[in-house]
C-alpha cells in the first residue's frame, strides 16, 4: 500500500471515530452545551484539557522551535507547563466552586458590573479568534502536504468535522472527542520519537536519549551537537542566552505561564468536573498528559537537528551533492518549506550558520522553474558569506515546521509512521479549534445574549443561539484560515500577552483580594490591555508601520514584545489596587460571594 492510501485510511478512520463520539454525546441542555453537565471524570478532563491546550503549534512547530533555539527553547517548555501550577492553585478550584458557565460571567458577578463582563467578553473573543485562525491554517497545511489536496479543500473538510461535533455536542461532544484526539496525537508524536531515539542512541525513552551517548560511539548527543553547531558558526546548543538576554527569557517565560493560566478555553475545562477537589487533581492529570509530549519535544528537537546536519553535510561534513540528496529533501523543496542555492558553485548542498537567502531569509521561488541541477530556482540568494569559522556559507533554507513533519522521513521510518504524524497533526489542530470555538460561542449566547441583551430567552432558545454562534464562529475562523491576515504571526504574541495582562490579574484579585471592587477591576483590565496592545503595536506594527525598531535598545527594561504581558500585568495589579483603595468597597453580598468560593463544601 502506498503512503497516500495509508494516510487517507488513517485520517479517515480518525474522523469516523470523532463523528461517532459526537453522535453518542449530543448536548440536550445549555448545561451540557457549556460545561458538559459537570459530569466529566477528572482523568478524562485532564486528557481533554491536554488536547485542548496542545495546538497545531505544539504538535508541529514546537520541537522545530526548540531545535533552532537550543537552550532558549526552554522558555516555551517552562512557560507553557508552569501555567498549570498557577491554574491548579490560584484559579481552577475557586472558579469551579463559583459553578457558573463562563469566565466573563465570573468577572461580571464578582465585580457586580455588566461593563466588566462585556470588557471580559471582548478580551476573550480577541484572544480566541487569534488562536483559532492559526489552527485552521494548520489543518489546511497538513492536508495539503500529506493528502495532496489544495489548502482550501483541507480547510473545508476540517471545518465540516468541527462543525458536526461542536454544534451538535457542544462541550459534551467536544470533551469526549478531545479525549480521543489526545490518544491519537500523543501516539502519533511519541512513536516516531521513540524510533529516532533508538536509532541515534539505543535508548527508547526520548527523555533519557537526549542525555545519552550516541550509538556510533562519538560521545554524548548534546556535546556532539554543541561542537557540530559551533564548527558551523552557530552558537552552541546548550549554553544560555545566545539569542535572548536573561531578563527577556524571564519575562517571556512568565508571560507564557500567566497567559496560559488566563486562557479562557483552558480555564473553562475546569468548569466541567463534578467537584472542587476534582478541579485540583484534574489540573495535575492535564499536566501529566501534556508532560508526555513536552518532555519528548526537546529530544525530537535535538535529534532532528543532528539528523538534518548529518544528512545534508554528509558524514565527512563537506556537503552532499544535490544529485545524491535523499528524496525527502526534494519533496519538501516542492512544498516550499526547503530551498537550496549553490553559493559556492560546487553542486553540493551545504548547511551552516547564516541566511542563505536575502531579505528576511526566506526563499522567493520563481514559480516552478528548475535550475541546472533540477533544483527549484529562487530569485533572492543572499551574499553567501561564511559565518565565523564555518567551512562554507549556508546554502539551505529550512522551515522549522519540517523538524516534526519530515522527521520520520529524515530518519527513514516506515510509511505508517508518516501517516500517523498527519492524523496527529490534524487531531491537535481540531481539538484546540473546537475548544476555542466553544468559548467564543458560549460567551456570545450566554454572556452577551442571555446575560446582557436578551435576558428573557428560554433555555431552548439559548441552546439554539449557542449552536448558531458556534456555526458562525467556525465560518469566521475558516475565513481567517483561508485569508490569513498578514499579521497572524505578530498577533500570536497578543493572545498570551492579553490573557496575562487582562483576564488573569482580574480573576486572581477577584478570588484573593476581597477589597478589590468594580472600578479597580475595570481600570486594571483596561490599563493592562491598552499597554500590552500598545507595546506590541509600537514595535511590531499591526495594520500600521512600527513606530520603532524591534531591538533590545528600544525595549522597556530589555523586555521584548513577546514578554510585554508581564509589564501589562504589573500595571494592571498596580492601577487596580490604587483605584480600589480610593473608591467604595464592594457591597457585603460580594464579600460573602468571595468567602463562599474560597471554601469547597459549604454554601
Amino acid at each position, binding site marked *: 500500500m502506498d503512503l497516500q492510501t495509508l494516510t487517507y485510511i488513517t485520517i479517515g478512520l480518525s474522523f469516523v471515530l470523532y463523528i461517532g463520539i459526537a453522535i453518542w454525546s449530543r448536548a440536550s441542555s445549555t448545561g451540557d452545551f457549556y460545561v458538559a453537565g459537570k459530569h466529566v471524570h477528572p482523568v478524562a478532563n485532564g486528557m481533554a484539557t491536554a488536547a485542548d491546550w496542545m495546538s497545531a503549534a505544539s504538535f508541529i512547530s514546537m520541537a522545530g522551535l526548540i531545535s533552532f533555539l537550543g537552550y532558549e527553547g*526552554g522558555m516555551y*517548555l517552562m512557560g507553557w507547563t508552569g501555567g*498549570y501550577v498557577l491554574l491548579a492553585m490560584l484559579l481552577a478550584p475557586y472558579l469551579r466552586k463559583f459553578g457558573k458557565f463562563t469566565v466573563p460571567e465570573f468577572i461580571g458577578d464578582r465585580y457586580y458590573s455588566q461593563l466588566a463582563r462585556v470588557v471580559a467578553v471582548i478580551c476573550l473573543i480577541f484572544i480566541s479568534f487569534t488562536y483559532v485562525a492559526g489552527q485552521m491554517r494548520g489543518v489546511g497545511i497538513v492536508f495539503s502536504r500529506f493528502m495532496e489536496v489544495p489548502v482550501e479543500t483541507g480547510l473545508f473538510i476540517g471545518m465540516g468535522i468541527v462543525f458536526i461535533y461542536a454544534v451538535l455536542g457542544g462541550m459534551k461532544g467536544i470533551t469526549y472527542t478531545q479525549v480521543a484526539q489526545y490518544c491519537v496525537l500523543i501516539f502519533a508524536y511519541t512513536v516516531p520519537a521513540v524510533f529516532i531515539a533508538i536509532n541515534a542512541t539505543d535508548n527508547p525513552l526520548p527523555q533519557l536519549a537526549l*542525555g545519552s551517548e550516541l550509538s556510533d560511539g562519538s560521545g554524548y548527543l548534546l556535546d556532539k551537537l554543541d561542537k557540530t553547531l559551533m564548527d558551523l558558526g552557530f552558537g552552541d546548543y546548550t549554553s544560555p542566552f545566545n539569542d535572548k538576554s536573561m531578563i527577556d527569557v524571564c519575562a517571556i517565560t512568565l508571560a507564557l505561564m500567566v497567559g496560559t493560566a488566563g486562557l479562557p478555553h483552558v480555564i473553562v475545562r475546569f468548569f466541567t468536573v463534578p467537584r472542587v477537589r476534582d478541579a485540583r487533581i484534574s*489540573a495535575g492529570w492535564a499536566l501529566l498528559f501534556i*508532560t508526555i509530549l513536552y518532555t519528548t519535544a526537546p529530544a525530537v528537537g535535538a535529534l532532528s537537528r543532528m539528523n538534518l546536519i548529518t544528512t545534508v553535510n554528509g558524514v565527512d561534513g563537506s556537503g552532499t551533492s544535490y544529485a545524491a540528496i535523499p528524496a525527502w529533501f526534494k519533496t519538501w523543496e516542492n512544498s516550499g518549506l526547503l530551498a537550496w542555492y549553490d553559493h559556492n558553485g560546487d553542486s553540493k548542498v551545504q548547511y551552516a550558520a547564516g541566511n542563505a537567502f536575502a531579505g528576511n531569509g526566506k526563499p522567493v521561488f520563481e514559480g516552478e522553474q528548475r535550475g541546472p541541477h533540477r533544483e527549484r530556482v529562487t530569485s533572492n540568494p543572499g551574499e553567501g558569506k561564511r559565518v565565523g569559522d564555518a567551512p562554507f556559507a549556508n546554502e539551505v533554507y529550512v522551515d522549522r515546521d519540517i523538524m516534526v513533519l519530515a522527521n520520520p522521513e529524515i530518519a527513514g521510518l516506515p510509511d505508517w509512521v508518516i501517516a500517523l504524524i498527519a492524523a496527529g497533526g490534524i487531531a491537535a489542530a481540531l481539538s484546540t479549534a473546537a475548544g476555542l470555538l466553544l468559548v467564543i460561542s458560549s460567551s456570545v449566547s450566554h454572556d452577551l445574549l442571555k446575560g446582557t441583551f436578551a435576558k428573557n430567552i428560554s433555555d431552548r432558545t439559548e441552546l439554539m443561539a449557542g449552536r448558531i454562534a458556534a456555526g458562525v464562529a467556525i465560518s469566521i475562523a475558516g475565513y481567517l484560515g483561508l485569508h490569513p491576515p498578514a499579521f497572524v504571526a505578530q498577533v500570536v504574541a497578543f493572545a498570551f500577552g492579553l490573557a496575562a495582562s487582562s483576564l488573569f490579574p482580574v480573576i486572581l484579585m477577584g478570588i484573593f483580594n476581597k477589597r478589590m471592587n468594580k472600578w479597580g477591576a475595570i481600570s486594571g483590565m483596561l490599563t493592562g490591555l491598552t499597554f500590552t496592545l500598545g507595546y506590541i503595536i509600537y514595535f511590531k506594527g499591526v495594520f500600521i508601520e512600527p513606530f520603532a525598531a524591534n531591538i533590545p535598545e528600544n525595549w522597556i527594561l530589555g523586555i521584548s514584545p513577546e514578554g510585554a504581558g508581564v509589564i501589562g500585568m504589573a500595571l494592571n495589579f498596580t492601577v487596580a489596587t490604587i483605584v480600589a483603595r480610593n473608591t467604595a468597597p464592594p457591597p457585603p453580598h460580594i464579600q460573602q460571594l468571595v468567602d463562599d468560593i474560597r*471554601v469547597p463544601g459549604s454554601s
Partner: protein
Amino acid sequence: METSKDAYWKANIRLVIGCLIVWFTVSFGCGILLVNFFNQFQVGGYKLGFWFAQQGSIFTFLVLIFFYAIRMNTLDRKYGVRED
C-alpha cells in the same frame, strides 16, 4: 475537628505560597537565573542547568500539582469542608 473557614483559608494560602516558592526556584532559579552555575555540573549527557530548563522544571511542576491536590484533600477533611 476545626471548622473555621478562616483557618482553612490561611492553611491553603500557606500551602500555595510554599508550592509557588518551589515553582519559582526550579524554573526561574535553576533554569534561568542560575543556569550558568548549574551548567558546571554534568548529569549523564545533560548539563544540569539545561536539564532544569528543558526537563527538570516540568517534572517538578507535575509533582507540585499532585502534592497540592492531595494535601488539599487532607485539609478539606480536617476542616470539615469536604464535598460529598
